[in-house]
């Protein structure tokens, strides 16, 4: 089989990732530096919300926020933020939070609703979007336009995920700089590492693609893909799981290494389930993940491991993607999703399934706005 015949969007996006990261970095830096010092100083906690990949970018960036800003940070689902979160979290002085809302179109209904709620209760709000004229941008106090070229290829989400995560990292660095929770030397070093780490990983993508194509051929007929990752790596696991559904509508699940041993371990026909583990030398639960991998081996599940650790740490018959190490542990989710993204892209092509089920008209239904159109009114709580 010739890999070139199975070109796909995730591969094309991966090959241009460094270029896009640099575009977003240049666009976002001056905007982030304008976030007022007073609002940063006010923030007693930080909420990050969005839908789908945007929310996952929040989960991926949460360790960065906690490490850099030393502030409580919550990556919260849009529905929980807009409808369920207790009001006392949103504006009781002096508990003013900083709320970061992510939507590339700026039109995601639940995210806009969350922004309205946060503003109404006195929280400081920042929109991350590619549409500065959108309702979300206009609702929030500040808008950061990631500045992605309009004609780019962004579906299924990969570059947009990195753009959201990069912008979040840069907001965290701005907060750390203003609050002096990191030194100016650390600030400069972390900024530099964001671009250097991207560059180191970009050099590996062609090699990843070759191996990803081999794995895709072996895995295309498996029953499901099951993802495992802890803390910062949990976002990578979750994102990989999302790509399974987006690229080929596959069955998938995800969990952390501990709960996996309590739940997913018992899935039927383990030899027909591909297990994807993301783990790093700096992962605090590295030992527990190794135990989990041993369980995967006993179950005889095909297994792919994305790691910056030495290959010798893992069983010989597993597909180990050794990826460059980042100087700061919280940067790993920025690049470690790429190996499985490529596998998912290739499986989609090998199966002949169009992403987001565009080959089937029933998936084009506008499921978000049916009730609104019939007159249901949203009440901000």
């Amino acid at each position, binding site marked *: 089989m010739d890999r070139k015949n199975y070109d796909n969007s995730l591969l094309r996006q991966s090959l241009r990732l460094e270029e896009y990261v640099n575009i977003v970095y240049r666009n976002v830096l001056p905007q982030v530096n304008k976030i007022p*010092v007073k609002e940063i100083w006010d923030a007693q906690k930080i909420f990050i919300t969005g839908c789908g990949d945007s929310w996952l970018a929040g989960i991926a960036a949460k360790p960065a926020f906690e490490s850099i800003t030393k502030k409580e940070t919550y990556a919260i689902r849009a529905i929980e933020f807009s409808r369920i979160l207790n009001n006392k979290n949103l504006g009781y002085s002096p508990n003013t939070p900083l709320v970061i809302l992510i939507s590339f179109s700026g039109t995601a209904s639940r995210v806009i609703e969350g922004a309205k709620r946060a503003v109404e209760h006195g929280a400081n709000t920042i929109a991350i979007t590619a549409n500065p004229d959108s309702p979300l941008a206009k609702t929030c106090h500040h808008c950061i336009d990631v500045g992605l070229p309009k004609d780019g290829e962004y579906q299924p989400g990969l570059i947009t995920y990195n753009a959201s995560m990069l912008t979040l990292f840069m907001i965290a660095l701005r907060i750390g700089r203003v609050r*002096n929770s990191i030194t100016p030397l650390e600030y400069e070093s972390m900024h530099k590492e964001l671009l250097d780490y991207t560059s180191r990983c970009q050099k590996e993508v062609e090699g990843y693609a070759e191996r990803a194509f081999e794995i895709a051929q072996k895995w295309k007929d498996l029953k499901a893909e099951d993802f495992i990752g802890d803390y910062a790596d949990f976002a990578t696991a979750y994102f990989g799981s999302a790509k399974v559904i987006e690229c080929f509508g596959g069955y998938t699940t995800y969990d952390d290494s501990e709960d996996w041993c309590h739940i997913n371990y018992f899935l039927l026909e383990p030899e027909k389930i591909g297990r994807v583990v993301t783990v790093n030398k700096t992962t605090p639960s590295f030992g527990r993940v190794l135990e989990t991998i041993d369980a995967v081996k006993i179950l005889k599940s095909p297994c792919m491991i994305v790691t910056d650790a030495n290959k010798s740490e893992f069983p010989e018959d597993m597909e180990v993607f050794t990826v460059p190490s980042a100087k700061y542990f919280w940067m790993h989710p920025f690049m470690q999703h790429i190996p499985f993204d490529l596998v998912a892209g290739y499986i989609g092509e090998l199966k002949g399934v169009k992403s987001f089920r565009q080959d089937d008209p029933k998936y084009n239904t506008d499921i978000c706005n049916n009730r609104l159109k019939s007159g249901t009114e949203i009440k901000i709580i």
Partner: protein
Amino acid sequence: MVYIKEFRLTTGRDSLQKITAEINETVKESKITNGTVIVETAHSTAGILKVTSFGEEVLEDIVKEMRRIVPARINYIHQDSPENAAGHIKSSLFGSSLSLIVKDGRLLCEGKQEICFADYDGPRERTYSVCVMGE
């Protein structure tokens, strides 16, 4: 004759680092026996100060008093960071260059005063230059 030399240093937070030895060394290298020395840093949140050589606690007092005079407030119009905004002001108020006299191949203040590099927004990698002029 003019002799110029640039130095690099890594600073700390609120640091006053003594650089008198480096300046003396530069004067010796220049072979100028009578003239002037200018010590300057081009950074806008750092400074060059002449302080007494009598005890480390004086340096601590200077740093603390500077913080009292120009605190790191959140309401400066310059919005980089409170430390940075205060640093710009300290650099302007307390100076970023010094002129010193060289007599018989030695700094006139030698033994009585120390020359310090002050970083008001550190730690950072910084530079300063020493220019010796004379005969």
